[in-house]
């Protein structure tokens, strides 16, 4: 992982966000086939190929520092993007442990965790942090444990309590959502939280997913992929600032579509937490411009076909209705009808 700090506005203003060729090739394409429909596409979160986004439990990539800075900017403006109910304190510590253990084991050149009983020492070199604290004692950290660790992790993080055969969304750090809100969802049950998703309820997807997650085991995390599209490389597409990004959807043209429209993949990870018996939900976002999508011939053909044939209800829910025809028209020039090979890897 190269964590070189880019200067300037990355996820806003001047849109300085760029993927290096390496980052393009490791982009997790969310389409294993040329068509897309919901499914309970949950699989064990076991290590994937070297260099891939699933090589380690928590991926840390070239955008690490800029993404942590972006989070700080969002929190400065809207502190309610981080919230946790009081009974979630042990789940907060569980999540802090997961984050620190995982980063320090996967990227020892950047992160070091030393544990002596409850006395922990954490070093985060990319962000220049050096913190001694007592595990379990909130007063020993500058912020609540979940806020402290998630300010140093990419992606959004939600902690859930398990009770009454349900999962309750009762804490989290959500600064880069695809149109959902921690402030709105706090305290909701699993199905309430997923209420706005079309088709899934009728298909029984949420019943099956909930039943599966209620039995999620320690040491056996799972993952799934989700996706949408975003105009500009804007991580923070929250309902709270829809006035800023909603109008962008009308500004996509054949001239700018390649550079401003981004395919947005969510790598979602779920871990059973040991002390709280809760679950932590990671939503890690990767963005790729359509120009970068088109640079991989197989992906250009596949994304073209998926968008072209997408169920209209899903296109509406994902907010694609207005610019989908433009994206399809742009990608059509790269699709000569050649079949795509199985799997998502570039050929």
């Amino acid at each position, binding site marked *: 992982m190269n964590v070189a700090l880019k200067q300037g506005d990355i996820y806003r203003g001047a849109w300085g966000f760029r993927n290096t060729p390496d980052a393009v090739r490791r982009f997790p394409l969310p389409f294993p086939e040329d068509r897309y429909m919901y499914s309970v596409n*949950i*699989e*064990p979160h076991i290590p994937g190929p070297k260099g891939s986004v699933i090589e380690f439990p928590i991926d840390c990539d070239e955008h690490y520092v800029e993404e942590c800075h972006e989070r700080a900017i969002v929190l400065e403006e809207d502190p309610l993007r981080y919230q946790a109910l009081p*009974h*979630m304190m*042990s789940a907060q510590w*569980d999540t802090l*442990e997961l984050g620190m253990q995982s980063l320090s084991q996967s990227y020892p050149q950047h992160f070091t965790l030393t544990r002596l009983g409850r006395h922990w020492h954490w070093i985060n070199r990319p962000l220049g942090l050096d913190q001694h604290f007592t595990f379990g004692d909130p007063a020993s950290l500058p912020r609540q444990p979940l806020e402290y660790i998630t300010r140093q992790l990419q992606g959004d993080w939600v902690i859930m*309590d*398990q*009770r*009454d055969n349900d999962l309750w969304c009762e804490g989290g750090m959500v600064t880069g959502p695809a149109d959902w809100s921690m402030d709105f969802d706090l305290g909701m049950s699993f199905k309430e939280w997923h209420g706005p998703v079309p088709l899934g309820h009728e298909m029984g997807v949420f019943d099956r997913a909930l039943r*599966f997650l209620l*039995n999620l*085991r*320690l*040491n*056996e995390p*799972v993952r799934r992929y989700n996706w949408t599209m975003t105009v500009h490389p804007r991580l923070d597409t929250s309902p709270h600032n829809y006035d800023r990004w909603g109008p962008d959807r009308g500004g996509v043209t054949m001239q700018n579509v390649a550079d401003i429209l981004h395919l947005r993949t969510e790598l979602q990870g779920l871990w059973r937490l*040991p*002390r*709280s*018996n809760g679950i932590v939900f990671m939503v890690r976002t990767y963005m790729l411009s359509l120009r970068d999508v088109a640079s991989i011939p197989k992906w250009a053909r596949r994304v073209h076909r998926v968008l072209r044939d997408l169920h209209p209800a899903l296109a509406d829910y994902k907010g694609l209705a207005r610019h989908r025809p433009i994206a399809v028209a742009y990608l059509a020039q790269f699709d000569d009808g050649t079949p795509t090979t199985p799997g998502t890897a570039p050929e």
Partner: protein
Amino acid sequence: MSHTHADTIAVRVLAVERVTPQIKHFTLAPIAGGELPAFSGGSHIIVVMRGAHRVYRNPYSLMSSPNELDNYQISVLRVDPSRGGSAFMHEQVRVGSELEIAHPVNLFGLAKLARKHLLLAGGIGITPFMAQLHDLRLGDVPYELHYATRSPEHGAYCELMSRAEPQRCRLYHDSEQRLIDIEGLLSRQALGTHVYVCGPSGMITRVLDRAHALGWPDSHVHYEKFSAPPTGEAFDAWLEKSRVAVHVLPDQSLLEAIEAAGVDAPYLCRGGVCGFCRTEVIAVDGELVHNDHFLSAEEKASGKLIMPCVSRARCTKLVLNL
């Protein structure tokens, strides 16, 4: 999705102590050194025992402190007649023995929003509460423990509990005709109280029935029961997806027979409670013998579902979608 327990943890027995004529207490430490996985009070582990002819996988509650992870502690009641697991633990396992365990699973956790916890233990059912008490002592939610045993002699942890919880623990012994006043206790709790019961079937049933009759919401009533799989007549099963024939011995569970045939079947509690092993029945030329606490009466009557961890069939051939 895989259901295997690929990641078992190798442990060595550090200490064995006989605490009553029928209960032994085991201390298990990781062979690899360091700490065992953190857990929450109420969790159990599956201990994998490799006997001479058969592999046993029995669930035991963790009773040690969730804050001390150098070792795990469990207690094993010798069941008579034993199907093999508890006898194996009592007879074959000694200091220095090596065992495998699966990561802890909690199906009996404390409710984090409870205003008060009412803990009811019967006999060996004290063990999950012993781990939970470590957490409860650090919190500020009131709790009380009522612990019933057959006699002081059979009360494995009576002394320990009354020393650790002098204000909050009440002991009851059948031999002295002192029984927990379930009706009285349940009828005088403040709203927001959660009740937890772990013990013999009869005790659990009494608590569930009384709580229901008194209008307790199901969400506030918790129980855990590790019933050994009941024995029965031998029968044959056919696993349709795996194309494997399985013979189930009289003292073997259907799940154990499936595992012995080399088929990886899902499970979590192995006690008929969690529903994870629920399997579709394609055909049976006799009747299903449901011993679980998970399926509804209608599901049991439908003959279409079975929980192989505790249930079996009185038939010559059972066909499963597995």
